[in-house]
């Protein structure tokens, strides 16, 4: 269970980006998560609010885009998506270590409130 460490690193990155942009809080975090990242989505979703406590990220939504494993098959000369847990081309059966995608664990966007002044309350 290393998802709490992952969540803490994630919050640190997001908070820094928000602060740089002058935002006071974060509304949503967009994350790309590869099938081969070694991170369990549900565990990360569980840890994220805990890691975000008492930071600008507290209360933010975590939007995860799952990235499937894609390998380059040399014999077929194309990028293919193997079956789960396999590193073989589904077309010709050749194994491949040319991983094109699937190891992602990256923040792609941070949503913050618009800088426009808030409406005055009466």
């Amino acid at each position, binding site marked *: 269970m290393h998802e709490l460490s*992952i969540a803490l690193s994630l919050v640190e990155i997001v908070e820094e*980006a*928000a602060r740089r942009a002058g935002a006071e809080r974060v*509304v949503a975090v967009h994350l790309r998560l590869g099938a*081969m990242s070694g991170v369990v989505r549900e565990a990360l979703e569980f840890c994220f609010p805990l890691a975000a406590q008492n930071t600008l990220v507290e209360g933010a939504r975590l939007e995860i885009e799952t990235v499937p494993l894609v390998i380059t098959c040399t014999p077929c000369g194309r990028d293919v998506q193997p079956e789960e847990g396999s*590193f073989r081309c589904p077309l010709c059966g050749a194994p491949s*270590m040319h991983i094109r995608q699937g190891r992602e664990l990256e923040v792609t966007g941070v949503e913050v409130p618009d800088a426009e002044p808030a409406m005055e309350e009466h």
Partner: protein
Amino acid sequence: MSTLSTRLLEIRTGVLSKNDQLAARLRERFQAAGVLALNLVSSPGSGKTALLERTLAELVRAGRRPAALVGDLATDNDARRLERSGALVRQIETRDMCHLEAEMIAAHLDAAGWNLAELDYLFIENVGNLVCPSGYDLGEQARVVLLSVTEGEDKPVKYPVLFNSADVAIITKLDLAEACGIDLALTRRNIEEVRPGITIFETSARTGAGMDAWLAWLMAR
């Protein structure tokens, strides 16, 4: 419910980018010093320490200069066990951490005060865990995954992420293979299935069987 107007800050940052950068710096240091750094990963009880014990002793006997950083949640039992080989050894007690990170390696190398230029090998024994260490680069030149014959043939296909991240696999406790009734050919096939092209060794740290090939691989590097 009011709709909140938001703006999107587009950033593209790896969540582990800080670790990756530190690891890249460590790798440069290792390469500049001519030391081969290896990250040993496996489940708990696969025989990392026993393999290391024998490997360190054999390397010292052959006039090589190995060192080892040993990660465990608690105790310095492994370090004390490995020191008998004559190699430089330092324990990393991770407390609650289930894996090692590059920052810990850098800190412990500094604290140990080893001159990397006077070393030939740096073995990093990771915390016994088949999941968490996979995403953390420690600056190693090669990742070595161990699988003992007592764990069964299908361990690699159950944990493809970690096995896929390795450069070398060692099937350990070969002396128990018969008693466990393990199908070694199937075990090898399963490792190759999740990590095409990997180099595989079979060893017994107790009897010394298969150690020659593993040591020859190390010496050739």
